[in-house]
């Protein structure tokens, strides 16, 4: 009886172990399936022409997505220019002032901002920038994406800098180095890998955003490098072309998906490598 009981327990243990192993594997499956489909359908489309040419009109095979690649690049640059200095600055403030009314408010607001649906951020950018300028533009899209990047950068900067030992700051101040130089030349460089990783992760995050661009960057079938004019982006192109009834456009959408997926994956890998390589040992 007792023996049976123990055997049953051991079996249950084994079954449970198998179950969690199975579930762990199952969690990989979605990504693998996504990559498999994107590669299967996108690979055939991608060639040099695809990356360097504009989309062809309906009914013509071939063509490329150069406008969307350039547009995505512009949007990322604009959003970075807006949010990186702001985010790092706010992060430095938060790490230096752990308590206090302003820190509390900033932390709360940043946390809430992180939870705001991306479409709502798009609407805000529409009201703030598109309406006054009376045109959809790369600028408005970039700012919408910048607002989405901001919380990631602020929080990561704060968390990274908080981990830097106080003794380092003291060492610098005791040498007669002014406070601002201590922060900019000692503290921030010591946390650079964390901050850089946060920037890359946040770029990877917003590069694939569609919703905030729907009524800001809007999309554009032509090449545009003017930040005050609408631009296309990879996710917008996928969104527009995948919903179209034309098989040639579907092919372009698959190809663009693959480019986007590779871009995001690469950024994530770079971030991982950088965290390891640049790690500062205290």
């Amino acid at each position, binding site marked *: 009886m007792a023996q049976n009981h123990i055997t049953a327990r051991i079996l249950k243990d084994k079954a449970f172990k198998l179950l969690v192993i199975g579930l762990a594997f199952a969690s990989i499956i979605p990504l693998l399936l996504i990559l498999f489909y994107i590669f299967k359908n996108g690979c055939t489309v991608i060639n040099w022409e695809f990356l360097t040419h504009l989309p062809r009109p309906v009914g013509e095979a071939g063509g490329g997505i150069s406008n969307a690649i350039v547009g995505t690049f512009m949007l990322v640059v604009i959003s970075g220019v807006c949010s990186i200095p702001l985010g790092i600055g706010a992060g430095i403030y938060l790490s230096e002032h752990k308590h206090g009314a302003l820190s509390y408010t900033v932390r709360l607001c940043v946390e809430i901002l992180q939870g705001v649906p991306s479409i709502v951020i798009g609407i805000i950018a529409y009201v703030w920038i598109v309406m006054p300028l009376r045109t959809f533009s790369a600028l408005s899209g970039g700012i919408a994406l910048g607002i989405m990047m901001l919380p990631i950068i602020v929080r990561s900067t704060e968390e990274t800098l908080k981990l830097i030992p106080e003794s380092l700051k003291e*060492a610098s101040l*005791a*040498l*007669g180095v*002014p406070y601002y130089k201590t922060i900019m030349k000692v503290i921030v*460089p*010591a946390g650079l890998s964390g901050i850089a990783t946060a920037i890359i992760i946040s770029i990877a995050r917003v590069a694939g955003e569609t919703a905030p661009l729907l009524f800001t960057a809007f999309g554009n079938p032509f090449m545009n490098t003017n930040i005050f004019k609408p631009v296309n982006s990879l996710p917008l192109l996928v969104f527009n072309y995948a919903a179209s009834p034309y098989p040639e456009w579907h092919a372009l959408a698959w190809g663009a998906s693959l480019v986007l997926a590779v871009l995001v994956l690469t950024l994530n890998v770079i971030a991982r490598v950088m965290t390891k390589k640049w790690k*500062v*040992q*205290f």
Partner: protein
Amino acid sequence: MESPVLKIENFHAAFGEHVVLKNISLDITPNKLTAIMGPSGCGKTTLVRCINRMHELVPHATVSGKMLLQNEDLYAMNPIIARRKIGMVFQRPNPFPTMNIYDNVIAGYKLNGLRLSKADLDAVVEVSLRKAALWDEVKDVLYRKGTFLSGGQQQRLCIARALAMKPEIILLDEPTSALDPKATSHIEELMIELKETVTIVLVTHNIAQAARTSDYTAFIYLGELVEFGPTQKLFTVPEDKRTEEYLTGKFG
């Protein structure tokens, strides 16, 4: 007796309501090692942090009384200038992790934006490392990160970094408390050698260390300066009963 390099007169320090130092008066003699000893929490670290005004980093820190560095009021100076004249070495070695050994030594120049020629910088690095008795160990690895060194070497690097600024005084805040006995004796020998070029204030809770290294000893207890005098005298014929009890291990 030479005129003191640092004169502390009726000095009080408090953090908010909490009074840490009461009416401290102390003269620091140039090119001597003055040890400040006392049990944990007696205010000895606060005293040295007041000397280079690092205590001001703590919110609500207040002081009264006088500190004169070569007859100049330390508290009328810009703290940044004061800190360049008074170097400090901390309990735990804290070399800058992003810099190599060379840059660590000249960090005071680099971070302050003081420009020197490469030859001058090389000279500062070599002289400072030699003074800190580290040159022979690191002269071939000057461009490696300072954090690769052992704890004792890191602490000597921090001493070299403080010496590089050519300070009047260098404050050592329990510099051996994070080190093993061998590294400790190394640093103690170093301190005695350094007296030739610089005035040293050493904070320690280690009575034996104060006896071994110092010329003058101040005994601080509960924020008060109980006794101050030549080390020899204070350790053999202490005037105050509390000093005697502390030295014989009755408390602390």
